[in-house]
């Protein structure tokens, strides 16, 4: 059962085995929940939006045309549901006007020969990244999640979000730059960089 592809499960659902949809939910719920939380910045709202997205996807399944993968199609639904929820809440993405401007951050990192506490610093590194993503503007954390967690290509992200390639690349760059800045700010020297 577990080795079934999304396609196999969808075929079973469409053939009348509706209970098989639970497998599809279990397969995608964690990543989808992560995306929803990153967009809505609230677990309760994210859970509600995700339930709505799964039910919408189920109802729309007979019309699924296999033009893209199920995950791309489904995450487009999640994205749209969350975007609607955001607009209802009055939260619209505020992206600075120089978003499209190319930026090249400094690569300067001081060197040191000290031995860092590897385990602690790895945990600290992960904590900083998570905190920074939580605080990150929704339009950036969404792209970051789609790219890293969902492992989507630029083209797939464009398909999900409806954004042009330049914007996708730029938001991804800015999101990563923000994470990098937070890490460098936290670790005033490069000790941690040795251990990560």
């Amino acid at each position: 059962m577990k080795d079934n592809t999304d396609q196999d499960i969808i075929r079973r659902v469409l053939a009348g085995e509706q209970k098989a949809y639970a497998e599809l939910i279990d397969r995608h719920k964690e990543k989808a929940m992560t995306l929803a939380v990153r967009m809505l910045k609230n677990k309760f709202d994210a859970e509600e939006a995700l339930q709505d997205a799964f039910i919408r996807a189920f109802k729309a399944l007979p019309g699924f045309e296999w033009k893209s993968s199920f995950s791309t199609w489904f995450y487009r639904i999640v994205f749209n549901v969350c975007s609607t929820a955001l607009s209802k809440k009055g939260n619209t993405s505020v992206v600075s006007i120089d978003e499209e401007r190319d930026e090249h951050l400094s690569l300067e990192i001081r060197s040191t020969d000290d031995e860092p506490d590897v385990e602690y610093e790895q945990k600290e590194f992960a904590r900083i990244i998570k905190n920074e993503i939580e605080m990150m503007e929704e339009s950036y954390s969404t792209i970051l999640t789609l790219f890293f967690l969902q492992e989507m290509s630029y083209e797939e992200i464009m398909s999900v979000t409806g954004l042009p390639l330049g914007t996708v690349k730029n938001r991804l760059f800015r999101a990563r730059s923000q994470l990098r800045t937070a890490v460098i700010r936290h670790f005033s020297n490069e000790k941690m960089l040795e251990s990560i």
Partner: protein
Amino acid sequence: MKNPTMQELMEYVDGVLEPSRHREIENMIAGSKSLQKEIRMLTAMRAVVNRERIAPPKKFTSEIMNDILPQRQESIWFRLAKNSSNVFAMVVVLTLIVMALVSSSPPSSSTMNQLNTVFNSFSSSFNSTFSQILSLVQEYTRPIDGAMKTILGKMLFIGLFIFSLLVILDELFGKRMMVRK
């Protein structure tokens, strides 16, 4: 060879750079400690984001499936069976009240006769099967034997019979009535 920009380093980590530029940057990284550290940090960042999962509550899937899957519609029998417990309780309470009134001030013989006529006519319709069950019940429940001859006993028995009948009917027909939400 120009130094790589941060954007290029990120694209290098993602593996989406053009092959020629990828090779150039690879050579530069090999000769630069600071670039190696930068690449290590970008890779670690990617790994952290990639690893993180936010799990929905445990009942998440079952709640969605409850919304999606066809639900059992409450048939008329099911509703009757469900509500009959209330009706049965009410009948019992009313009977107790009636019995209390009867014991405190016995009704006229004509009223008793009317009631007996009603119950007699009701029980006679079930007579063929009912009397046998009744005799069995009387045999095994000698302490309430006397009660079965009273109005309370009869009403309790009739109430139980109706309740059981509704439950059986619901089991037979209720579950077959499915409807999609």
